[in-house]
């Protein structure tokens, strides 16, 4: 299967979907949109006379891709400023390509842009309903010693036209997942998309595996990781925008994937730390953002609270899991001691009863282990996932603040330039005056862009938060139902054991 060559997308600060000549706006004044047919750099003028601000931000139901035209020049010096502070040089925020969809999809792709509401688009996915299932399986140790790694099989089953096949697998290693997250984070985080975090690195866990320690804890580690990677991929593809990202598609489909380099920097915790550090730096710059939008204020507080609550819940469950494991160990030990007691008895009926007691206890021990695993894999992992997700959500809110700050900075700069220009009016320096006028023109564009960016990210965040909250409820419900089912099963098994033991106990004489 040949990989589609994907050139590095042009640097942009916004994510814009542009259609092949399709007019997205009712206004006839819409300038010819940049042609997205190829992925090469597109020339965008700063003076495009696309529809002005008002029509962009009417209400949330508007097509996300309505604002396609006003763009900052690629060479704008300020944008370099925007790009370079915050994330380290290892990750340069790049806007996703304008025509993410075009290379591969046929006519169904058109449907996406004629829908007036983003929600409809989410449901229909350009004609496809959301039908994709990813599983991560068959962890396989490749290599020996400290250079060894685990390879996982990633299997995708789907009927969506987004993909070349319906059922396919690839082999991936952990750093590949981190690499994917790194790319997605650098493309989408700063414009307000909640990018699901990848599972954490674990030096202790991996070292055991590398060294070849085949015990319960390292098996558990591999299983935990496998499960976490699976959840990570499913969360990522559930996001309607991320699903269509070429890096995601490449990850799922390509047999060979270029090795992700510098995964130190790319670990999702690392990225989030950077994002949050940037946010802190921004805060320290005394951002007293005039939050005109009560929604944001409330939501921000809500997520702060949620963060604290989830961490408490997570700690609670971890303690529960710990005790369950302890119970399993203790039950096994008791079973042994009961067996020894039974063996040293002369009286046959007593001896037999005690031996059976030992057996019952051993079976119960197994049940406890299974229950502990249920607690562990279901709740503990879910809560852990959500603690990390909340970090991503908070990061996105902070990006918005940063965006606001940029806008304000541009405005202040513009103000200064205007004052300077006014002064220059009275001097006889026509070339300096012209330069000043040019700079002002540029800055005006920048200010407009800044405001648009801010409005855009606010809108995106609203949508993302809504999606997040819906998903959260679904996620929790599903896990809880699974857990309850396992709980009921355990009880019924217990009942069977007790019912079998009772006549034995009664028969002792």
């Amino acid at each position: 299967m040949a990989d589609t060559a994907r050139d590095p997308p042009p640097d942009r600060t916004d994510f814009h979907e542009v259609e092949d000549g399709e007019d997205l706006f009712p206004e006839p004044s819409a300038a010819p949109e940049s042609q997205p047919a190829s992925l090469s750099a597109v020339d965008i003028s700063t003076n495009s006379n696309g529809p002005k601000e008002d029509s962009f931000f009417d209400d949330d139901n508007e097509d996300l891709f309505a604002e396609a035209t006003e763009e900052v020049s690629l060479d704008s010096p300020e944008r370099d400023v925007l790009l370079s502070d915050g994330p380290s040089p290892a990750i340069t925020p790049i806007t996703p390509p304008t025509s993410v969809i075009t290379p591969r999809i046929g006519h169904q792709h058109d449907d996406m842009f004629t829908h007036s509401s983003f929600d409809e688009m989410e449901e229909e996915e350009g004609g496809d309903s959301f039908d994709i299932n990813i599983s991560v399986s068959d962890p396989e140790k490749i290599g020996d010693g400290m250079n060894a790694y685990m390879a996982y099989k990633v299997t995708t089953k789907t009927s969506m036209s987004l993909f070349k096949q319906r059922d396919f697998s690839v082999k991936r290693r952990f750093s590949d997942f981190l690499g994917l997250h790194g790319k997605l984070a650098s493309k989408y985080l700063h414009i307000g998309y909640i990018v699901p975090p990848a599972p954490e690195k674990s030096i202790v866990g991996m070292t055991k595996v590398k060294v070849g320690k085949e015990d319960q804890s390292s098996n558990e580690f591999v299983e935990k990781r496998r499960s976490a990677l699976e959840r990570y991929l499913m969360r990522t593809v559930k996001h309607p925008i991320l699903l269509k990202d070429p890096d995601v598609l490449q990850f799922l489909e390509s047999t060979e994937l270029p090795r992700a380099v510098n995964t130190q920097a790319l670990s999702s915790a690392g990225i989030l730390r950077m994002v949050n550090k940037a946010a802190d730096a921004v805060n320290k710059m005394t951002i007293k953002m005039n939050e005109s939008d009560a929604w944001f204020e409330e939501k921000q507080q809500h997520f702060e609270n949620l963060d604290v609550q989830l961490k408490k819940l997570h700690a609670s469950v971890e303690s529960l899991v710990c005790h369950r494991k302890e119970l399993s160990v203790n039950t096994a030990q008791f079973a042994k001691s009961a067996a020894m007691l039974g063996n040293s008895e002369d009286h046959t009926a007593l001896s037999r009863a005690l031996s059976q007691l030992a057996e019952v206890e051993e079976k119960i021990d197994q049940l406890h282990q299974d229950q502990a695993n249920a607690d562990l894999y279901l709740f503990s992992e879910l809560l852990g996932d959500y603690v990390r997700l909340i970090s991503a959500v908070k990061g996105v809110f902070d990006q918005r603040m940063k965006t606001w700050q940029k806008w304000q900075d541009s405005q202040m700069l513009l103000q200064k330039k205007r004052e300077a220009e006014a002064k220059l009016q009275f001097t006889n320096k026509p070339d300096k005056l012209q330069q000043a006028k040019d700079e002002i023109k540029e800055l005006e564009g920048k200010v407009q862009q800044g405001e648009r960016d801010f409005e855009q990210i606010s809108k995106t965040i609203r949508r993302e938060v809504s999606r997040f909250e819906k998903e959260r409820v679904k996620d929790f419900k599903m896990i809880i139902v699974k857990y309850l089912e396992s709980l009921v099963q355990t009880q019924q098994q217990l009942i069977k054991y007790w019912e079998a033991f009772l006549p034995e106990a009664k028969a002792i004489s």
Partner: protein
Amino acid sequence: MMEEVNEATSVLSVYGHTIKVTEALQDGDPLTFIIVSQKLSGTGEYHVDRTYDDFEWLQQHLYAQEDVPGIQGVIFPPLPVRPQANASAKVMKQLGFLGLGEWQPYCKALETFLRQVAAHCILSKNKAMEVFLTSIDPPGRQKVKRNIFNRLSQAVEELRKEGHKDVDEFFQTERDHNLVLTGHARTAVEKFLDVALTEQKIAVACGHFAAALQICVENGDDPEKRAFSRVCAKLSEVFDSIKKNMMSVAVNDMNTLGLGLDLDWRYQEAEREMLFRRTCKLVELENARKNVERAKPAKKSAMEEVKKAAEGEFEQICKVAKQEIVKLNQERVGMVQKSLTQWCEQQLQTAREGADIFNQHLQAFKAMA
């Protein structure tokens, strides 16, 4: 006021099997136990309050029956160790199952002790028992001359005797067997205690989780917020149920098998003490025989008397001991059967209730979606 107790035999005026230790009162320092027993005459009950000192008084009187032939061959019903409110970790470990809960297991153990004494053909005849059960006033907080009866708790030199080779195959076998059994029984109790304590820890942890979930419940108009709050509230209920179920499992463990294993172990220890007493008597007898052989003619008849007395006592002890051993081995089977059956029945009940409740929760959750 101390009751004058002569060692004359008496008949208990209450039904032994009706003796109940109903509660432990903790006003003031020593725990006080309320003991109720039904009068044989059918005219009502005796209610008395006793402290641990009173129980020790009774025990000492039982030990001190020197005129009863072969008394040292009796396997004395074991009295639990002294309880302490706010006990140290060491004492709690000693108490084991008996230290759990609000002294209910301990009361049960005291009750068993009294019932066993009342059921013992020799011991029930001791007047001290009647006084203990029926006298309004406490039998005597004055210390009775402490009879060093439980020799195992003594100096190291005495303990060396425990390994002394026996002359009788039946007893040698029983001693060896008892030693092994005592060790295993103690281990079984300790391990089962660990199980019960861990079950309690799990229950507490479930309670914490349920409480933490309650904190996530918020009011609001936001439909998503409401949906999530509902999920958290329901899950909190689930974990509350899990907590209750776990507590029930732990309590069942403690009250049935826990107490049963504990009693069995303490009886093995009691038998060990009896066997040790007998062994000491054997050593004494062997020494007396040697003394006769070695004695100078003047002392010879005196030594002979001593030897004859020792032989007599030893014979009595062996006779009683054999009966006691046979009786214990029979009763043990019944005791273990009873505690295993009760344990199984109670756990089965709890499991059924648990399955019902969890199933209800499951259906409720599915209906929510």
